[in-house]
C-alpha cells in the first residue's frame, strides 16, 4: 500500500530537507576547522572565496615543532595507564558485584553512579591540596590517580551491567568442570563479555582523554595533557587560530578510528547502561 499523493511527497521532501540541514549542522564545523588549519595568517580574516588560492602547511609544521606533540604523548600515557589500572582493578570487582549473592547491591550501584556524576571540582580541591604537600603536582602518577577517580567508577558500573547479561549457568558449568572462580572469570566470562569489555575500555580512555579540568589544576609544564596545551595558543595578545585548528584536529584524530571500530559495542553498552 504505497501512498504517492502530492501531500506525501511534500512531507517526504520536507523530511529529507530536515535531515540534510542537520547533516550540514554536524559536518560543516568539522570542514571549517580543517580549512582553518590550512589558512595562512595573512588570509585568516578574509572570506575563503576572496582568496581561494591561499593555503599553507605552516600551521602543521609549527605545531610539530611546538610542545604540543609531547602533550599528546602525555595524554596517551595518562589516559592509557588510568584505563589499564581501572580495568585491572574494576573488572574482577564488577564480576563479584554482578554474581555474588548479596543484599546491599542498591547502595553499591548508587555509590558508583554518584561517583560518576559528582562534580570534578569536588574531587580536585582536596587532591590539589594533598598533591602540593606530597609533591604529586605535575607528575604522571598524580594525574593517573586523579583520572582513576573518573575511570574506575565508570568501568565497574558498565562492566557490572555487562556481566549481568552473562547467564549464571555458564559460570556453574565452568565450576562443575573443576575450574576455580578466577579461572572461570578469565577463561569463560571475560571472552563472553568481550563487547562490554571493549566499550568500557574505550569509553574510559575517552573520559580521561577528554579531561580538561584535572589537568588544568594539577599539571604544569612537564605533564600537561593535550587539551590544556591547546590553550597555549590562546593569549590575551593574540589567538593563533591556525595552530588551534591543527591542534584540535590532532586532538580528535586518534579518537576517530577508536569510535569507528568500537561503535557497535559502544551503542550496545550505552543502551544497556541507560536501560539498566
Amino acid at each position, binding site marked *: 500500500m504505497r501512498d504517492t499523493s502530492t501531500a506525501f511527497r511534500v512531507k517526504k521532501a520536507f523530511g529529507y530537507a530536515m535531515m540534510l540541514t542537520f547533516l550540514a549542522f554536524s559536518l560543516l564545523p568539522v570542514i571549517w576547522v580543517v580549512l582553518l588549519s590550512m589558512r595562512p595568517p595573512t588570509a585568516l580574516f578574509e572570506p575563503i572565496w576572496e582568496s581561494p588560492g591561499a593555503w599553507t602547511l605552516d600551521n602543521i609544521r609549527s605545531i610539530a615543532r611546538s610542545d604540543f606533540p609531547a602533550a599528546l604523548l602525555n595524554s596517551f600515557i595518562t589516559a592509557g595507564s588510568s584505563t589499564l589500572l581501572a580495568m585491572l582493578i574494576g573488572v574482577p570487582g564488577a564480576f563479584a558485584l554482578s554474581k555474588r549473592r548479596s543484599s546491599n547491591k542498591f547502595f553499591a550501584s548508587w555509590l558508583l553512579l554518584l561517583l560518576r556524576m559528582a562534580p570534578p571540582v569536588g574531587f580536585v580541591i582536596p587532591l590539589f591540596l594533598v598533591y602540593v604537600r606530597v609533591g604529586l603536582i605535575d607528575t604522571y602518577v598524580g594525574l593517573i590517580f586523579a583520572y582513576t577517580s573518573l575511570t574506575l567508577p565508570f568501568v565497574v558500573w558498565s562492566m557490572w551491567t555487562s556481566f549481568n547479561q552473562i547467564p549464571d549457568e555458564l559460570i556453574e558449568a565452568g565450576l562443575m568442570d573443576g575450574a576455580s572462580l*578466577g579461572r572461570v572469570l578469565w577463561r569463560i566470562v571475560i571472552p563472553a563479555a568481550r563487547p562490554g569489555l571493549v566499550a568500557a575500555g574505550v569509553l574510559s580512555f575517552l573520559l580521561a582523554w577528554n579531561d580538561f579540568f584535572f589537568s588544568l589544576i594539577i599539571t604544569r609544564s612537564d605533564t600537561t595533557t593535550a587539551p590544556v596545551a591547546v590553550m597555549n595558543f590562546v593569549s590575551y595578545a593574540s589567538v593563533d587560530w591556525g595552530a588551534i585548528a591543527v591542534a584540535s584536529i590532532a586532538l580528535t584524530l586518534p579518537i576517530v578510528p577508536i569510535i569507528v571500530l568500537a561503535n557497535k559495542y559502544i*551503542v550496545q553498552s*550505552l543502551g544497556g547502561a541507560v536501560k539498566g
Partner: protein
Amino acid sequence: MPATRASAAMDRTYRRMLVPASLAVGIFAITPLLGMLALSFTDFHLVRGWSGEIGIQNFVRLFEDRRFISSIYIMMALSVFGVLAQVVLGTAIAVGLDKIVGRWRFARGIFVVPFAVPHVAVALIWLSLFTPTLSPINAFFAVFGIEVPALLTTQTGAITAIVIADTWATYPFVMLIVLAALQGISPDLDEAAALDGATRVKAFFRITLPLLYPTLLMVALFRFIETLKHFPLIFVMTSGGPGRATQATNYYAYVQTFQNSNVAYGASIAVFLFLFAAAISFYIAKANARLSDA
C-alpha cells in the same frame, strides 16, 4: 554439606575480588570527597591558611551570596535549554535514521562525528565560529548585507552560544541511544497503527513516544548531570563572561577556589553541587533497580 562449603569458599573468592576495587574507590574517590566535605566547614584560604575555626558559616554565606544565586540560574538555563535541544534533536534524527536503510546508512556514521571531538576542541571550534572577524557565518551573511550579531557579547547570546556548542557535540549521544531503543520496538506496531488508519505523526506520538519514554527520561537525566558539570565550554568560550554572565555554579566554584583562593568557600559550593548530583543519581539508581527487577 559439601555444597555449602563450596559456596562459602566461592563467596570468599568473590569478596577477595571486591577488595582491590573497594580499596581503590575508597582511596581515589571517596577520600577526596570526604576531604571536600571537611574543608567546607573550615575557613581555609590558599594564602592565609586556616584560622582553626570550624562552622557552617560557608553555607550561611552561600545563600546570601548574590553571585552564587545567579550562578544557579545560569546553570539551570544552560542545563534545561541544552538538554531540551539535545533530546529533541537527537530523537528527531534517530527517528529519521531509523527508517533509512541501504544506501543512506552511512549517514549514521556522519552524524556521530562530533561525538568524537574532545570538549576543548568543541569549545575552540565554536569560539572561532562565534568570533565575528573570523567566522565564515558572518562572512557569508555579509555578502547579503546582513550583519550577524556577536553572540558572545551579551548574556543571552553567550548562553545560547554555549548551548549550541554543547548540543552540536552531544546530540549524537542521544541519537545513538534512541536509535538502539527504536530498533528494539517491533515494526508490527507501526503497521498495526497504519491499518487502524492512524497517520504517521499520530502513530509516533501515540505509540512510539510512550514506548521510548523510559529511555528518553534516562538519557535526559544523564545529560542533565553532565551539563551541570560544564567547564571547558565556559572556560574557553566565555571565561565566565561577558562580566560574570556565564559563571555557572561549577565554574563559580572554580573561580572562588583557584582564582580567589577561597578554598573552603569553593568546597562548600562543590558540596552543594554534590548534593544535587546525589539526589538525581539516587533517583536513577532506584529506577534502574526497578527495571532490572521487572
